[in-house]
């Protein structure tokens, strides 16, 4: 299950963002955006405080042994980047940062609003020496507004952004349930995707005009934008949606679409009930009939679309019984082979090894030379046929590229590096 190698000397063409230099000053809010650019070929230099970015402290850790360089979360979000340490609160650190910024295409930063300008490292100052510079500040609420300085977390953003108001349980499934914030750190993902779009659009603008610009991106706005129909429903009806187990929040009730299987799992059967045509219901009924579980669904009355519509709950109940007697794998694949867009609710470990994903070279072996081992990472969502996505290297160790970049590129002597380390600059 391995394939695109992370070794250099790859014969494939360069990634679509090759030739771009990105400086990243980012914690959990922006590290994913940096990864998106790095895996697509940009040269991303992660600039961390001398004791490492705080996201290195987030678990899980390799073999559950906490260490700066063993955070699996940090590993995932920081592939294809090089890393240096720089104390931006020292004059030497600021001077080195300015030198790096003079040759950068993009700066991605997630520090508190006003922090970099207070160090003389705001966009005004940096673009004065490099007018082509694009700088994206990705912060909880943006650079303006009454909540600008409020502190947040993933949970807070999913609360304020509306994700929680749409996610949870039917009262008959879990009485008195709270609104649920889905896991995985998705406030940061949503924001990173939008920030990426903003950055790409400004690159395109720069290609035409020669000018860089400043992007003020807000995690809160990105989340507030990401609840699909909830806003339109409110604008049209004045109603807010109710939460339903494993399906769309809606005004009023809706057909259940998360069906339990015999092996203690579930399958999502979107559009199984209300949108069934007679022919498609017949297809399902025949399948159930093979297992002696069609009940009355083979009857001629189900040749009438209106009758099906009126009896959607019954159809779903019969279907639910059928599901309860069958394993998950048979059910979702059986549905797909009959052209029903169903999906198994899989846990992450259950899709490792998936054959379709293997066909797409999704599982990527990434070498960790410091450990003498390699590990399987998630690969690309999109195959760029002309300019491939790739993980060019594992996440940097703390300060791993200090010498390569500060000496190799900026021309510092090794002795200077020692002085910088001793004085707490790197």
């Amino acid at each position, binding site marked *: 299950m391995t394939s695109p190698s992370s070794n250099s000397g790859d014969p494939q063409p360069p990634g*679509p*963002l090759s030739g771009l230099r990105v400086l990243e000053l980012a914690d959990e809010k922006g590290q994913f955006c940096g990864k998106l650019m790095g895996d697509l070929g940009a040269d991303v230099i992660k600039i961390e405080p001398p004791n490492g970015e705080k996201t290195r402290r*987030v678990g*899980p850790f390799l*073999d559950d042994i906490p260490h700066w360089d063993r955070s*699996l979360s940090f590993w*995932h*979000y920081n592939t294809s980047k090089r890393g240096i340490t720089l104390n931006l609160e020292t004059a030497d650190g600021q001077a080195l940062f300015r030198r790096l910024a003079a040759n950068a295409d993009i700066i991605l930063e997630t520090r508190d609003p006003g922090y970099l300008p207070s160090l003389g490292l705001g966009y005004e100052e940096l673009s004065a020496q490099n007018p082509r510079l694009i700088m994206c500040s990705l912060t909880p609420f943006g*650079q303006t*507004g009454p909540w600008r300085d409020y*502190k947040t977390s993933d*949970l*807070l953003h*999913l*609360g*304020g*952004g*509306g994700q*929680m*108001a*749409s996610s949870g*349980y039917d009262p008959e499934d879990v009485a008195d349930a*709270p*609104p*649920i914030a*889905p896991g995985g*750190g*998705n406030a940061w993902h949503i924001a990173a*995707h939008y920030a990426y*779009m*903003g950055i*790409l659009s*400004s690159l*395109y603008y720069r*290609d035409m005009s020669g000018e860089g610009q400043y992007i003020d*991106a807000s995690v809160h*706005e990105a989340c507030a934008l990401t609840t*699909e129909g*909830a806003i*339109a*429903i*409110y604008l*049209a009806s004045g109603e807010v949606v109710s939460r339903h*187990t494993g399906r769309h929040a809606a005004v009023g009730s809706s057909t259940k679409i998360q069906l339990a299987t015999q092996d203690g799992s*579930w399958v999502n059967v979107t*559009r199984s009930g209300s949108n069934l045509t007679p022919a498609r219901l017949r297809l399902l009924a025949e399948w159930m009939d093979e297992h002696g579980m069609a009940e009355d669904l083979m009857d001629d009355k189900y040749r009438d679309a209106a009758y099906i519509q009126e009896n959607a709950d019954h159809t779903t109940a019969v279907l639910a019984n059928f599901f309860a007697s069958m394993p998950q794998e048979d059910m979702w694949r059986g549905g797909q082979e009959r052209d*029903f*867009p*169903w*999906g198994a*609710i*899989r846990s*992450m*470990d*259950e899709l*490792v090894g998936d054959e379709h994903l293997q066909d*797409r070279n999704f599982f990527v072996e990434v070498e960790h030379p410091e450990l003498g081992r390699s590990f399987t990472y998630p690969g690309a969502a*999109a195959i*760029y*046929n002309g300019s491939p996505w790739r993980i060019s290297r594992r996440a940097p160790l703390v300060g791993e590229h200090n010498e390569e970049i500060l000496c190799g590129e900026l021309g510092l002597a090794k002795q200077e590096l020692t002085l910088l380390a001793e004085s707490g600059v790197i």
Partner: protein
Amino acid sequence: MPLPRPLEGIRVIDFTWVRAGPWAARWLGTFGAEVIKVEWPENLDMLRNNRFTVPAGVEPGPNSTGQFADTNANKRGVTLNVRTPRGLELVKGLIGVADIVIENFSSRIMQRWGLGYEELKKIKPDIIYVSMAGFGHTGRYHYYGTMGPAAQALSGLTFLSGLPGEPPAGWGWSYLDDTGGMYGAMCAMTALRNRNATGNGQHVDLSQMITGITLLGPAFLDSTVNGRKARREGYPPGNRTVWPGSPPVNNYRGPTVVPHNAYRTKGGGYNDWCVIACLSDQEWESLAALMGSPAWATDAKLSNLNGRIEHQEELDQGIEKWSQTLEKYELADKCQNAGVRAMPVQSSEDRVEHDPQLRARGMYTEMEHPMLGTWKFQNAPFKMSKSPPVISRPPPMIGQHNKEVFQELLGLTDDDLIEGYRDGSLWPPEMPKYPYLEEAVR
């Protein structure tokens, strides 16, 4: 002078429908690309039928749904039947003057129409083709279909939402239509950037389902590196980082901290909840002080993380007793002013009407829509200093721009259009035409 637009001069042929695809093309339009949505009224875009978003007093119909409107702003729209020779010829004409073709059909449709990448490339050698099929175009199950919820289930996203011991709560909307949409736009813009650098177009083969897997990296690595299973005691831990009584294994949302939960607030209404998270001992001390330093909260056993994990139930109950004395915005403001992380749980109404931050930042733009009247559209979640994203055009009524697009780009005459309406290449002959279609060629 109109503001400059970053994708000025880029033309997009948009075959997308439902949500993920149209949302992708919507962003390209918002950055200034000229997006031409290609539709056929007999296979109506499902969002044009979304009866829940037709305002009271507006005649229902394909041009009257609010959800279609917001998802398809900044586009022009044409109708044509690619399964007629004339329709196919016209669409090839459009592709010949386009930069990007984007679609989210199942994997075999474009090939079936004779519009696979090899064909597109013959028409326009540097074309960028973004396909957004559920499973992608590559891989043995490419023909599997997905809507957002099934894609979420298959990617692992659904499983990590909910309370332990209960069925997954999942996502109360098609999150992967949002993500798939963002990704579609990202792919198109990335490929454009590459075309600028190399002169070459390409086919970008996106899988909506796989976009979800890429959002689960830490859980993925916990499986492949540490061999840990997600089906385990106390997982997923609801809004908490660790479920009481379960081992404190990281839950992939961020650091393991307590308190970290949703709490009821004054009023007791359906969305009267507030979320609070203390990421350090100090933040917890600030919260305890804000609550008036009750004895239970200042107890030394809660002064460190291990103690708060051990006594989480009791601690959450204590916080909720206090939180129910305050209205949710008031509570969040008080907390934030005391250095405690808190936010109200906001419904759609809250965001549109009550959120002072979204109001100050101008999250919603009002624009006149021929059927909906003055309608609010959602803006981009960022400000750009030189080339701002702009919502400048309401969504197309079906076939609204047939005349303008076919005349401007392909030189068709009114007689050609009338013939197209007659022979079924531009509109189903049996289907009544909207007055605006007739009037345009009168």
